């Protein structure tokens, strides 16, 4: 059963189109995350679903019914805002019960529902406090509680964790995931933190400039990004993009050169047009430091994270330094010359338009 369906949704602010035709479906119980760079229209799209922003064109269907012109409170959705947006003059209990009160739910029934939600979130002892007397994490819980109490068809979250410190964010991330399992509710979650997206989502919607770039499970986006943008956006540290010149093409097999003495041959490459310049995408953990590796370069910067060492190397290919992720600790310092080898099982080839044309290469010589 389809819970939410977006059909070519568009939104313009005074002639300037911000959401440019977005279509996808969210099925019941799914946890969908919108990611994308700042200003790409994630919040706008979420607010259109919530009913806070008018829909310029397209259709929004909720359980099969068109809800474009239904008021926000009648859509049966609940939203958790980035700033929590608690009512400062009401106690936690009044905050959580406000929607029920406006809906005319009786006092005892209201109290029962609020207490039930408070128990789930472990904030029963805070019910009589005002928001001003709560910590950031507690406010966050109250805001989530306010959504739970309404028993909505879909939960909407707009960067709910971005105001919390790193440790609390990790904790709330786990709690939200647990909450999703417990409530089995449909959730749509906006973030620009790709760790949040990767860890919590059933499916991720990657947006750029008001358009959907790719929709899929976290690992499918990581393993099979459809284009340069998704490849660069998903995964941290970022994928390395190396310019590769096309030497020759024979059906699906192409021969590329990374540098004068590094060549590779790749099979099963889709049509790339007549262009000569392709892009090779290699994740940092697929490049290794090897004394006799085919690529050589000078170390620019070493970032030691303890469990992982990030080595930025100027390999003379392309304009950006190559990032190498080494599991564990590695004794190397800036200025040293190192050799690099590329593990070719997980590399991607992109056409000049940015489309991915092949992966899992069979190189002849690297």
């Amino acid at each position, binding site marked *: 059963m389809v819970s939410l369906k977006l059909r070519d949704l568009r939104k313009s602010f005074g002639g300037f189109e911000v959401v440019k035709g977005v279509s996808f479906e969210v099925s019941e119980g799914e946890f969908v995350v919108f990611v994308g760079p700042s200003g790409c229209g994630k919040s706008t799209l979420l607010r259109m679903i*919530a*009913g*806070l922003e008018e829909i310029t064109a397209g259709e929004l269907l909720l359980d099969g019914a068109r809800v474009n012109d239904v*008021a*926000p*409170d009648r859509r049966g*959705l*609940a*939203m958790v*805002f*980035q*700033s929590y*947006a*608690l*009512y*400062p*003059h009401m106690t936690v209990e009044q905050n959580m019960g*406000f*929607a029920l009160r*406006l*809906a005319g739910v009786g006092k005892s029934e209201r109290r029962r529902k609020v207490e039930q939600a408070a128990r789930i979130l472990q904030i029963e002892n805070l019910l009589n406090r005002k928001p001003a007397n709560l910590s950031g994490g507690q406010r966050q819980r109250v805001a989530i509680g*306010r959504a739970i109490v*309404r028993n909505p068809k879909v939960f909407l979250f707009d960067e709910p964790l971005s105001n919390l410190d790193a440790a609390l964010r990790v904790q709330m991330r786990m709690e939200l995931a647990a909450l999703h399992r417990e409530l089995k509710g449909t959730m749509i979650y906006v973030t620009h933190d790709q760790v949040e997206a990767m860890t919590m989502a059933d499916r991720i919607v990657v947006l750029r400039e008001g358009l959907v770039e790719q929709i899929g499970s976290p690992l499918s986006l990581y393993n099979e990004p459809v284009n340069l943008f998704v490849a660069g956006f998903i995964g941290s540290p970022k994928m390395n993009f190396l310019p590769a010149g096309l030497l020759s093409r024979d059906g699906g097999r192409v021969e590329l050169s990374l540098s004068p003495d590094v060549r590779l041959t790749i099979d099963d490459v889709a049509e790339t047009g007549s262009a000569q310049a392709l892009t090779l995408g290699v994740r940092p953990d697929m490049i290794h430091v090897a004394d006799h590796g085919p690529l050589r370069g000078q170390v620019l910067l070493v970032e030691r994270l303890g469990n992982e060492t990030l080595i930025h190397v100027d390999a003379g290919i392309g304009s950006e330094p190559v990032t190498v992720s080494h599991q564990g600790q590695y004794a190397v310092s800036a200025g040293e010359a190192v050799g690099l080898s590329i593990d070719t099982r997980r590399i991607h080839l992109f056409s000049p338009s940015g489309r991915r044309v092949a992966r899992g290469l069979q190189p002849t010589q690297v």
Partner: protein
Amino acid sequence: MAKDTQSKARGPAVRTGPLMAPAVSLLVLWMIVPLAMTIYFSTLRYSLLQPDAVSFVGISNYIFFFQDPALWTSIVNTLSLVGGVLVASIAIGTLLAVVFYETFPGASIARLLVVAPFFVMPTVAALIWKNLLMHPVNGLFAFFARSLGLPPVDWFSSLPLTSIGIIVTWQWAPFATLILLTAIQSLDREQLEAARMDGARGLTLFYHITLPHLARAIGVVAMIEAIFLLSIFAEILVTTNGGPGSATTTLPYLIYKTALLDFNVGMASTGGIMAVVLANIVGFFLIRTISRNLDS
């Protein structure tokens, strides 16, 4: 004092007393001298008609004043005027603030215009209302009434205190609008949106979200307005001269009449002290209700 000990405890060992003394003594002189002189005059039998026959009479001025029904009428008039204008100007101010919070074409010019009455001098405002708007023959209101086939209202004879209240409200509503508009603009947009998602709209939204947010600012407006409204004078002098009868004689106007029409300095000073007491009582109740609102 507290500040003094504090700076001794933490700051450099400079004696701040002598430095503050000039300002403090000026302030004390400024307040105490007129008050003391008023109290002194209020114990004298002192009429400008018989400037040589000044004598000390103790509290008999007060006794006489308390027995004068004009005092009680004037206090009732003062409180009705202050209370009525407070309620009306805050109600109108809140309404206008909510209206002008929305953006519409020409909003900035409209905001400017709505504040304009505040800058019109009281005498001018009163004269405009008296002669151009409320005049039973030439006034605009009378014109409207006649064109609707109704008998024109003779505002200053049939509704004198109300008429003055309307003029003063016209002058002070912009002030309330200005302060409340600033306050309303600080209302968190996400909070409004959360309330909308919770099902609040129109009046419920106003009552549950906007009004509580404005409570503090309304308190401030009430306090400031009360201080100025207690001493409303020019509007009364220009329009009704305290009449008809004593229908619009407020305490300040009564003092003026006693001092400058009856030339009775002693009695006028007594009235002045009464005004100070009244202002303090009003201030006390205002501050108490407001601070209770702020705590909750």
